């Protein structure tokens, strides 16, 4: 069979991952009982510093990182179980999400020992939050056309430019950003990753209101921001391949098919038997995407960079999430009168409809993903 398919090797969750699942469920049940975790009234990532600290106190941020950096030294499959349990419960994990998912792993993989010791323990304590500085006004899908520029100066670099659609920049302490450090013949060369302290002089964060009415994302301006030498992550000029590795973390997780689960579950709570077939269809996609994600987690555990697999799952997963919103809407509109539609369901559905166009854009558009898949099929 085609190479794209042999890429998804079936995997099963080991006993220690299931043991962790039980612990996480117990924690979530306790939070529900004590008011730390409410039934969601809108779709979308929720933010709570207090909740992030509690997750950290259990040792669940940086779960796979070595213990000397404050991590848990556990496997990627255990982390997979942790993340799916938190997301399925709509837990407010937004504050630490990016730092745990990709900033930390990038530092582990490409950062210096000093950088790891400096940032990872704070992330693992649930105290340091990160955001991603990739997109710009003129550089969306074509990321390599970005214009943010870092120029050499004595003792470091001077950064100028602008980032856009930066989720959580207004709450985060640091940004890992991609900037041009030299002009090369090949456009993917000459890019570098930097650690930006968002409180540094010359950094301005302004909220961008989304069509959902929320302001989770921002535009970030850099006006002669001084970056010391030790702000460079990895090698100067190696930014593109570092970012490619980062995207495997960004695109492969269960958040790419679980973000509309709260809506589907809220409908199921009050659904009628006449909706069984339409709901079962959606669930069959969810169960399948979950198996695909488990396969990816096993691949990460083997130390691979499953970019192609991540593209397949994100492409299917985000289309599925949109499908859920449309299907739930139609069921509520056509048969909602026969069941007790709650104001919570209405809130989830309204926010779900507003949010749904973003599913297939954020973290890499479906078109870019199909391009990655076409490459994997040797068509490009």
């Amino acid at each position, binding site marked *: 069979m085609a190479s794209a398919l042999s890429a*998804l090797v079936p995997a099963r969750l080991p006993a220690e991952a299931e043991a962790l699942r039980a612990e996480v*469920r117990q924690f979530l049940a306790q939070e529900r009982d004590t008011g730390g975790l409410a039934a969601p009234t809108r779709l979308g990532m929720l933010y709570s510093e207090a909740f992030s600290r509690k997750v950290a106190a259990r040792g669940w941020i940086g779960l796979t990182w070595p213990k000397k950096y404050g991590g848990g030294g556990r496997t990627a499959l255990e982390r997979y179980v942790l993340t799916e349990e938190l997301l399925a419960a709509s837990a407010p994990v937004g504050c630490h999400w990016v730092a745990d998912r990709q900033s930390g792993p990038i530092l582990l993989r490409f950062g210096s020992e000093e950088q790891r010791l400096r940032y990872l323990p704070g992330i693992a304590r649930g105290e340091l939050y990160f955001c991603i500085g990739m997109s710009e006004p003129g550089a969306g899908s074509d990321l390599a056309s970005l214009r943010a520029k870092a120029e050499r100066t004595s003792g470091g670099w001077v950064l100028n430019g602008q980032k856009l659609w930066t989720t959580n920049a207004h709450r985060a302490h640091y940004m890992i950003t991609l900037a041009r450090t030299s002009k090369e013949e090949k456009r993917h060369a000459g890019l570098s990753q930097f650690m930006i302290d968002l409180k540094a002089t010359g950094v301005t964060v302004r909220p961008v209101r989304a069509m959902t009415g929320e302001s989770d994302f921002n535009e970030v301006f850099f006006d002669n921001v001084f970056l010391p030498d030790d702000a460079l992550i990895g090698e100067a000029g190696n930014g593109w391949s570092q970012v490619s590795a980062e995207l495997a973390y960004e695109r492969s997780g269960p958040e790419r098919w679980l973000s509309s689960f709260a809506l589907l*579950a809220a409908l199921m709570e009050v659904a009628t038997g006449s909706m069984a077939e339409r709901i*079962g269809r959606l669930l*069959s996609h969810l*169960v399948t995407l979950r198996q695909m994600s488990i396969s990816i987690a096993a691949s990460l555990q083997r130390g691979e960079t499953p970019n192609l697999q991540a593209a397949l799952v994100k492409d299917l997963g985000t289309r599925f999430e949109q499908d859920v919103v449309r299907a739930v809407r139609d069921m509520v509109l056509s048969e909602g009168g026969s069941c007790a539609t709650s104001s919570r369901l209405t809130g989830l559905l309204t926010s779900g409809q507003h949010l749904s166009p973003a599913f297939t854009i954020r973290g890499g558009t479906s078109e870019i993903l199909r391009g990655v898949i076409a490459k994997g099929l040797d*068509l490009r």
Partner: protein
Amino acid sequence: MTENRELFADLARRLFSDHAGQAVVEAAEAGQFPSALWTAVAEAGLPQILVPEANGGIGADLPDACAVMQAMGAFAVPLPLLETIVARVALAQAGLESPDGPIGLCFIDASRSLENEPTVQWAGKTDAIVAIRLEEGGGRLAMIRNPLLTSRLTLSAEPGAAITLDAVDWARPVDGFEHLRLASTLNAARIVGALGWCLDASLAYARERQQFGRPIGGFQLVQNHLGGMAGHVAAASTIMEACASAEPGHSALHAACRARLGDAIDEVVASAHQVHGAIGFSREHALNFRTRRLMQWRDMFGSTPYWRSALSTGLIGRAPEQIWASLAGA
């Protein structure tokens, strides 16, 4: 893939490429039972691949049998092999002697109308038909030597007939749902085999077929079709594998598998034909021998809607955390 499974896959591919060429498939669709093919498959022991060794079978694992079924799907093999494999397992469990030759198979379920009037593939060309009636907590089995049949047009164009079960002797108690899940999983494997074939054939055709002075696979719109197909085939393959290696009682995975495959078939069939253009629609082209079978297999041993409802019915009305716990296994 385990070593054993690789061996079964190789054996099946070799048998089918030697004995199930297009001429055999076409003759079968004209109503002629492929006797030479059956003899080769029977000599290799494949009809009793899942019968325990103690009962004279091979005693292989379900994933091994799935490897054979994947090859069957890829080669569009016209044979009641799946039916015979399941019937022999069911007969052995019921303590009944199996006939030597091919066996037809059908399931009925009065309460949920699994199939109102079951159509049996190859009915009339088999030694017997095994019918299994699903009942709460089990079911009953009947072996029918002289069935009352009404010939039916089938999607695959392989011979098939509706069977009348009014006067049948439901002689033996069996675990009907276990046998249905077995048939359904083997069916999923042959579907995955055919889906993979469709993707590979479409990729090969897109590289070779030239229009506007270049291979059509160079056009982004065609790549979009192929990329979408690859996703559905990967999804189908992943859920089938999970289902084949699941604990016997994991009914949610089984239901999810067949429900998901129904959508994968719709998408892959449409895209494969779109990539192939008119040539795939011509009867002599290998593509439509797969797509017609995919259309048939999509709704055999429980239709896609049946499995969708089976997946959700027990979950409706429950709290979100209970729904999740059930989907994520306990």
